[in-house]
């Protein structure tokens, strides 16, 4: 268990740093709240309407599709780093991997997942 000691120290340091800063800012800062200061954006423009609005589900759909292809790129990086040692085997593997994503892309496209209206 000794080898985990640095992680414990890091945890204590991280929490300690965050807590110390919050406590210090409360203790040292002067607090004179005025209505202007309490608005969400203190830039002189009054907020229009409520922020608690319903968003169209399309945003979530696009975000979700983005995550899938984002993860694909994440997997390409370690392959690129290890390209020299993986040789042809790695190349064929990654082609299959990207091929499956191409199939996904085609499926999304044909199903109309990329159309906004």
């Amino acid at each position, binding site marked *: 268990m000794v080898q985990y000691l640095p992680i414990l120290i890091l945890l204590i340091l991280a929490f300690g740093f965050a807590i110390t800063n919050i406590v210090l800012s409360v203790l040292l800062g002067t607090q004179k709240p005025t209505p202007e200061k309490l608005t969400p954006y203190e830039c002189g423009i009054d907020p229009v309407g409520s922020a608690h609005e319903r968003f169209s589900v399309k945003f979530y759909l696009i975000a979700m599709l983005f995550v899938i292809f984002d993860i694909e790129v994440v997997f390409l990086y370690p392959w690129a780093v290890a390209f020299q*040692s993986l040789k042809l085997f790695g190349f064929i593997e990654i082609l299959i991997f990207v091929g499956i994503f191409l*199939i996904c892309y085609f*499926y999304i496209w044909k199903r109309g997942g990329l159309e906004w209206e």
Partner: protein
Amino acid sequence: MTNVSVMTFNILSVLPILVLAGFGMIVLFVDILFSKRLGDKNILAYLSLAGIIIAAIVSRGTTPIALYSFNETFVIDNYSLFFNFIFLLSTGLVILISHQYMKRENINYGEYYALILFSTIGMMLMASGADLLNIYIGLEVMSISIYVLTGLKRSKLTSNEASLKYFLLGAFATGFLLYGVSIIYGATGSFNLKEIADFLINKGDVTGPFVYLGVGLIIIGLGFKVASVPFHAWVPDVYEGAPTAVTAFMSVGPKAAAFAAFIRILMTAFGSTHYEWQKIVYVLAILTMTVGNVVAVAQTNIKRMLAYSSIAHAGYLLVALVAANTLGVSGMLFYLLTYVFMNIGVFAIVIILSQRNDGFMQINDYAGLGYKHPLLAIAMTLFLLSMAGIPPTAGFIGKFYIFSAAIKSGYIGLAVIGMINSVISVYYYLRVTVVMYMQEPVREFYPLTISPFIVAAVVISVIGTLHLGIFPSKIMELVQQSILTMR
């Protein structure tokens, strides 16, 4: 930089999985490319069935030794081959019973077949995983498909609720499993089941309480998937809300897959700490059997009753896990196979008799069935008798093996509790039979539309239930063979 070894890359060992994945993608493609010309999508059901048959042909037979591949993370032995057979059989039967149902409920999406195939891939990965991470990935592949399938009937509120509930609780339970896996890794330094076992045998005393903590968390994660009792709260709502064909699917395959992983993890990796985890599973088994059976008595909706009966069956299977001897594990495999036949058989008949939007789901709606549709009533009676464990059906043999394994390991109290529970279960299973034969019909039995697919599923289930009940020895031999290469 060292060269990565590709020697352990054995494509043949994952061939059944590749076949199913390929057919899943073909189904998706055929559906989107020819959706206008497909009509009622019979072709997708045929394609999926073809994929399942080819995968079954590829993974048939037995292997003399356990074959490890992919850096020892994936194993083909008789145990995983037997489970592959269970998964493919249950998926095939579910496709047979679902086609007509999907059309009737207006949810005949092509994705349904693809998701069912993908989910089966996850199950096979779980049964063949020789590595905790691989088992986890299999669990996720299986579960995510089922979360989607549960919410397939988008227009129905209960279906949405079931899907969300299953997803949130399932994700939470998976968190427990992963936490357990990470603690085990911290304590033993490996994900590999064999290496964990070696570590625990050789220097298990240096790990302290961490191994027990990890095993406990893994039991919580898998206990959720098999629907054992403190983690069962999702089962009735999800089973009731999901489309009936999906309920049939998730009450059989995923349960078998979770038990496959359960046995392999506990027996292979933690066999040396057997006396510690046994106590947990002992309590779980008693709670699961008792709560499942007692609450099932009070149900009036047939899907909810089957949900609680599914919890109770998980309890019987946990008894076999407590016994943890050869007879127990082989009894469990045998019981899982019989459970495929009897459970899917019951759900097939529920589907035939129900109406759009889950009409006629109350047990009282079955009144008078014995006279109006005698064949259906006989088949239903047979499946229910088998679930209650009455000879000459398969359920009796399965229970017999499991309880005798418990007695052989010295758990006589547990076996007695199991038998008392069996008696309780007879009450609610036979109540349906009593309603079918001894009460006047309260509903109109309009001419039922029965597709040849679903008839085939019922016939196969009847044959399976009777065959395993009358001639169990051949399958029992196969089962005993399949656990020989495991350890």
